[in-house]
């Protein structure tokens, strides 16, 4: 079979050549035959492009879970080695379920290119359009991100569904409706905390032209302190308490333990309120930094 991109590139080139330049006369590609051929080409290109993206997406999702196989084996070895069936309240099956669930959390809370995009807008001056048009930058970025996430989540339902179906033996079925509702709320809050946190990081671009290294540090640290690597309960006492007081647990750890039914009653309410607090905190921080930064930008740059 021909690789999809080889097919995609070919019809694109002549199309573009005829489209460029008002001075160049269009070739007389008229008549029903030419028109239908053109639309067939467009149809084929769009279809192949869609398929290429789908393929890439499916493959990407599967590859992201490939390390999970090693992780599952590693944790099995840990549980066998420790000789106990329970580590910090997590049984072996729960541990694997937890790690799978953090992927769902990150589907909501990760914000690829948000901070770096803001910093780039500041550096390259594309920030202007938010200043000239009657539009609020953070509001615009938020709605853009919601749309982006909705499309992403809608397209991931199939691969994720398959994966969770394959891994169903690690779960004790679906939790009750109350827990599910709390889980949904925790995911929405993880999105908001993630969004406003990264937006705040991006605003640093008003003071430093380059934020790549800062972002790298934040992302690396985040992997550990948000609980993506292991449940925060596994850490020794001062550390687990400290990390649970930080906002990052809401990006991965918290929704996962809500789903597993490890947080209940008042703890659950406190947790959700905590997430809400941090979402509002970073919202205000991002707004404040934007305001101060804009004043600086307007005074020095532009």
């Amino acid at each position, binding site marked *: 079979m021909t690789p999809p991109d080889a097919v995609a590139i070919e019809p694109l080139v002549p199309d573009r050549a005829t489209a*460029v330049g008002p001075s160049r006369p269009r070739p007389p590609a008229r008549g029903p035959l030419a028109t239908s051929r053109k639309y067939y080409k467009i149809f084929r290109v769009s279809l192949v492009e869609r398929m290429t993206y789908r393929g890439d997406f499916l493959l990407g999702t599967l590859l992201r879970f490939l390390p999970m196989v090693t992780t599952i084996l590693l944790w099995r070895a840990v549980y066998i080695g420790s000789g106990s069936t329970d580590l910090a309240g997590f049984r072996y099956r729960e541990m694997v379920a937890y790690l799978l669930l953090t992927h769902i959390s990150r589907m909501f809370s990760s914000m690829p290119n948000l901070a770096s995009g803001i910093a780039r807008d500041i550096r390259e001056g*594309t920030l202007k*359009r938010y200043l*000239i048009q*009657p539009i609020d930058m953070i509001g615009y970025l938020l709605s853009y991100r919601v749309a982006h996430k909705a499309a992403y989540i809608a397209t991931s339902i199939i691969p994720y569904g398959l994966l969770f179906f394959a891994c169903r033996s690690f779960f004790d079925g679906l939790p009750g409706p109350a827990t599910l509702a709390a889980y949904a709320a925790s995911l929405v809050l993880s999105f908001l905390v993630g969004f406003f946190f990264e937006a705040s990081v991006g605003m640093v671009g008003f003071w430093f032209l380059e934020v790549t290294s800062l972002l790298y540090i934040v992302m690396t640290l985040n992997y550990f302190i948000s609980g993506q690597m292991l449940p925060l309960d596994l850490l020794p006492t001062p550390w687990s308490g400290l990390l649970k007081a930080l906002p990052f647990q809401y990006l991965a750890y918290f929704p996962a333990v809500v789903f597993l039914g490890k947080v209940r009653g008042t703890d659950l309410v406190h947790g959700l309120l905590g997430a809400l607090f941090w979402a509002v905190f970073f919202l205000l921080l991002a707004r404040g930094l934007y305001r101060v930064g804009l004043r600086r930008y*307007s005074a020095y740059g532009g």
Partner: protein
Amino acid sequence: MAMIEAEGLTKTYHVFQKKEGLLGALRGLYRREFKEIKAVDHVSFSIDAGEMVAFLGPNGAGKTTTLKMLSGLIYPTAGSARVLGFTPWRRDDAFRRRFALVMGQKNQLWWDLPAADSFQLHREIYSLPAADFQKTLDELTELLGVERLTRQAVRELSLGERMKMELIAALLHNPRLLLLDEPTIGLDVVAQVAIQKCLRDYHARRGVTMLLTSHYMRDVEALCSRVLVITQGKLVYDGPLSGIVERFGQSKVIRLEFAEGQVPDDLGRFGEVVRRNGPSADLKVGRARVAEALGAILDRHAVADVVVQDPPLEQMIARVFEEGRASHDAA
């Protein structure tokens, strides 16, 4: 009614002076030296509703900085401005709904999407009623002759077509003031003329106030009856385009064609010979001495044809720029 009123607008930038080489860079880590640059220096002018005004000046003269202050992107260091009755850098939504800024070097449209999608986004941003939006859009695409291109990805359009799309996007909300920064930069002559025509037609139809900066004298000649000349941050001329000729064009060019078949050798006596080609020659003569020189030449030689011209506007503008620089250096 005054659309724009600028009073003593001044913008000073602090520019970090970087020393050469590694040692200089290291020194810069703990001690930074700044240089003050006055990008705009006490500029005052007033523009009435419906006027079409050109902002002329060499690179770095302060044109764009002034436009940025008038559109509210940056604060002035000193001075004040009222644009459409608002202080621009307060960025009131009411103000932002009434003006548009088009920068020839920056595009606002989504690169990978058809312009139509960007237009829809603009409709949302400015919350325009669907019927009004469609009416304006149809009118603009017809005016610019791009009805068939709005569904094509922007990156596939030519530079001229892209600029037209940018203009449409900027005009969708019917701004009362249009600020244009180098709208024809990088365009070929055909596209330049097309953009000029669009702006002129749009101005005639809507009576919108326009302030544009440009390097191309053709843009200015085609569009604006009034020019502001700025060099070294200072406003050195404000008046009609023809006034520049009177004020700065101190000489005229006499184009002569001699019946004798060759240019006489003594032509240099009457003025500066700037061109010599077979039987014809260009003679540069001070404005006041044109009649006298012409009389003398006609007395002595058989002249087949004669034309008296002003030197090209570009040259005069260049003179204005140079004078501005010289007086600045002397100060």
